[in-house]
């Protein structure tokens, strides 16, 4: 902990608001990385049907279905916590920020389990039909 203290990270106790802030920041950075790759992948539409379908075959392989479960977590958390921030900043919900965080976790968690299980189901279905896990 000494190194953390000297770097200034333990000036605050790790409580709800700081965890919410850190998760928002980390998921946001992950989403910037994803959206950059996403725009690049979708731009292969310009190269015609063959190239686009070949690219989509790679990014819709089971490996990426599993990675997309992580992406879904980032999207759901960042979106719901973003709504929480708007409630805090514009609608005077500052004193309710802790229950709002738990609402984000419970609603987001439910949506993540629902969406994520569908995606994993899709990946397992592909694997059962003999598709390789790695598209490379």
């Amino acid at each position, binding site marked *: 902990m000494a190194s953390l203290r000297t770097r200034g990270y333990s000036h605050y106790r790790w409580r709800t608001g700081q965890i919410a802030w850190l998760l928002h920041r980390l998921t946001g950075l992950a989403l910037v990385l994803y959206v950059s790759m996403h725009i690049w992948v979708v731009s292969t*539409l*310009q190269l015609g049907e063959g190239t686009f379908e070949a690219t*989509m075959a790679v990014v819709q392989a089971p490996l990426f279905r599993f990675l997309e479960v992580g992406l879904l977590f980032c999207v759901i958390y960042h979106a719901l916590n973003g709504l929480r921030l708007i409630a805090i900043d514009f609608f005077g919900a500052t004193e309710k920020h802790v229950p709002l965080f738990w609402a984000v976790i419970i609603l987001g968690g439910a949506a993540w389990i629902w969406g994520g299980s569908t995606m994993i189901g899709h990946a397992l279905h592909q694997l059962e039909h003999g598709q390789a896990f790695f598209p490379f």
Partner: protein
Amino acid sequence: MLKMLARTGTGSGGSNAWVLQRISGLLLVVALFLHYLFLHFLNGGDVTWNEVTTRLASPLFKTIDLIFLVSVLFHAGQGLVINIHDYIHRPAPRVILVSLAWLLMIVLLITGTVTIVTLEPGFLQEMQMGQAAGVIDAIQSQGVAL
């Protein structure tokens, strides 16, 4: 700008960025919900060339996707800038990194806009070969006035 929002402070650069980050974020929640609905629920989960090109032939979807693209890149660039300002304190590296962040967003904006506005096959190949004239012809052949 946006001074009607009493809690936005002085209305100088920082507070404009702050309130615009919330407005673009709200827009993205709505747009991303529709994006998931159309691309991952209503079509059974697989994205195909036919489906995407059919949808993108509609001016309505082109407009929606362009608004979506601009908001996501504004929001992403602004998010990167906030991170750079928080951790990079020396002026020169800060200016360089902020410039690189916005340069990335501009490149993505051009790539995304080209993809949405015209689906002429071979368009990017021509651009990669540096045939600017061919690119302009391709845009004009799509009926876009330059």
